[in-house]
């Protein structure tokens, strides 16, 4: 069933989550951007702010709309809350000739993610396929993920670098949410359509005291999402793409990208599905205490592919090619889907504005659309 919740009653959702013991993470304005952080009430939401994104540029602009969720993909995704950028794994002590391993405790409170964009919802499913993969599951990820409630918000506005419609991941939320909202704003009306996708989500609905949405209201919701689908800032033709990239590893275009790419790794850091990490060991001065830390890593560094004798990917060309072919080609063989959900972050947050949709188009031999 779909409900209608008045926008001015949104605090009921915050209260319901608080009563159930959730710490709420959601969008809020900080440092000229909409970021995901701890929030306490609807007042913390970025009402009246919208982002303008293009390759290498992000600007937050004030709007006269009362909409709470007018932003598209924020600078970073939910990844950092489930797969922290830096995590102490264990410490060991050497005492009287024996080695004692002290595991770090990673207790997390139940978290509610409020405002998960459809692309990011799909990205969470991809991270699940990596980190909750049978015997090789990651314990901290599992612990956090199991305690997470997901409140998706459908997109009714697409951003300048968005292409979820091409990837089949948005702008309407697919599977995996506990609750899903659609925000509708018109001259005289401002409300949310609310659907639940799980028993956990359903249990949050009754405290909202929302009434059933009319068929007309539900149609308005679908139309608003269609508007976003028709206004994608970028597009990517995915048909045959994995094979196309695999067959073009010697294409001259890779050299041209390498002249622009900085190998700075921003694209991988902001990508909601990039999951690579490294471990760093350190000892104290006496050598009696050692500790191991897991850190986000990137295929754009020389160290990433370092083996005895040197780096396997010494050139920027080989690193960019590794990244793009992994996202759009070999990921499919590895995990059964693309490693890209079309959020556009790697395009926006690339300091020199390299656009993978553009590169894919050129590799296909088509003309450039965004130059």
């Amino acid at each position, binding site marked *: 069933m779909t409900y209608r919740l008045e926008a001015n009653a949104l605090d009921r959702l915050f209260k319901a989550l608080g009563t159930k013991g959730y710490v709420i993470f959601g969008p809020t304005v900080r*440092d000229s951007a909409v970021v995901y952080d701890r929030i306490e009430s609807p007042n913390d939401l970025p009402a009246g702010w919208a982002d303008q994104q293009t390759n*290498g540029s992000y600007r937050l602009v004030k709007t006269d709309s009362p909409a709470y969720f007018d932003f598209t993909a924020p600078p*970073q995704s939910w990844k950092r809350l489930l797969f922290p*950028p830096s995590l102490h794994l264990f410490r060991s002590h050497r005492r009287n000739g024996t080695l004692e391993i002290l595991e770090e405790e990673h207790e997390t409170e139940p978290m509610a993610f409020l405002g998960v964009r459809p692309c990011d919802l799909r990205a969470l499913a991809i991270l699940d396929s990596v980190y909750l993969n049978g015997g090789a599951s990651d314990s901290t990820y599992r612990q956090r993920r199991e305690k997470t409630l997901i409140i998706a918000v459908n997109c009714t506005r697409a951003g300048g670098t968005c292409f979820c419609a091409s990837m089949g991941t948005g702008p309407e939320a697919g599977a995996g949410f506990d609750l899903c909202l659609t925000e509708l704003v018109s001259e005289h009306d401002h409300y949310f359509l609310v659907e639940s996708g799980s028993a956990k989500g359903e249990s949050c609905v009754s405290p909202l005291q929302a009434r059933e949405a009319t068929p007309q209201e539900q149609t308005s919701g679908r139309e608003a999402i269609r508007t976003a689908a028709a206004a994608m800032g970028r597009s990517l033709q995915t048909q045959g793409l994995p094979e196309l990239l695999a067959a073009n590893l010697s294409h001259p275009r890779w050299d041209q990208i390498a002249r622009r790419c*900085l190998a700075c*790794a*921003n694209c991988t850091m902001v990508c909601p599905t990039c999951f690579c990490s490294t471990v760093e*060991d350190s000892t104290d001065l*006496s050598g009696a205490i050692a500790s191991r830390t897991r850190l986000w890593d990137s295929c754009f560094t020389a160290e990433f592919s370092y083996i005895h004798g040197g780096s396997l990917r010494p050139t920027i060309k080989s690193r960019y090619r590794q990244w793009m072919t992994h996202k759009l080609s070999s990921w499919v063989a590895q995990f059964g889907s693309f490693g890209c959900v079309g959020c556009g972050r790697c395009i926006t947050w690339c300091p020199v504005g390299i656009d993978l949709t553009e590169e894919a188009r050129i590799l296909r031999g088509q003309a450039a659309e965004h130059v």
Partner: protein
Amino acid sequence: MAGKGIPKLAVWKFASCDGCQLSLLNCEEELLALSSAVHMAYFPEASRAMIKGPYDISLVEGSITTPHDAERIHQIRRSSAALISIGACATAGGIQALRNFADVREFTSLVYASPQFIETLGKSTPISDHVSVDFELRGCPISKNQLLEVLTAFLHRRKPAIPSYSVCIECKRKGVVCGLVAHGPPCLGPVTQAGCGALCPTYARGCYGCFGPKETPNTGSLTATWKESGMDDAELLRLFRSFTATAEPFRKESESHEIQNN
């Protein structure tokens, strides 16, 4: 380490501001552990006791700018089992290497009343230009945690965990909103080696490049982008002429804007 008993540490100073050796004294909490792990045999900044070499580890701060220093560094090398150069001066020539782009005699005639008494070299150069160096620790100043990491690694004969990748990686791990993309001050983070913990970007300032070029630094692409957005050669030149101006990739980049300037 090489010698019997507790390893002997020496700290040497060349042309520099002392900031890097002060990082050693700034290791407040770790200072006690440090003084039991090494014997501070020669550290004039901290102690008047000056014990003769050879030393197990020498930390060298500062660049070579005088004929006397160019001699002295060889003696230090000979008396040190391991030599670690610390800071932008020792690893790249430092801010004083700006003289390398000009005629030092002109400077001395402007600065000193009797320039004829000044004996100085035409260029400020890093330690590794003169003797072999076992490890170069970057930064202006160096990070105290990285210094402890390098010392610990040398004491325990393991590889120091000092990354050569970009400041951007540290910046993103920290969750900083990238100022370069979100409001636009030029930031050298994408071409600069990590180590500072993205200090300046955390306070909404662009990175100044204190830790010198990262591995595979593509400075030309960054400046081409900034040029398109309206920066001129003079500004671009200045960005690359600061603490590590003579580190090869940064020197070449600033010089390319000089040529077009004329």
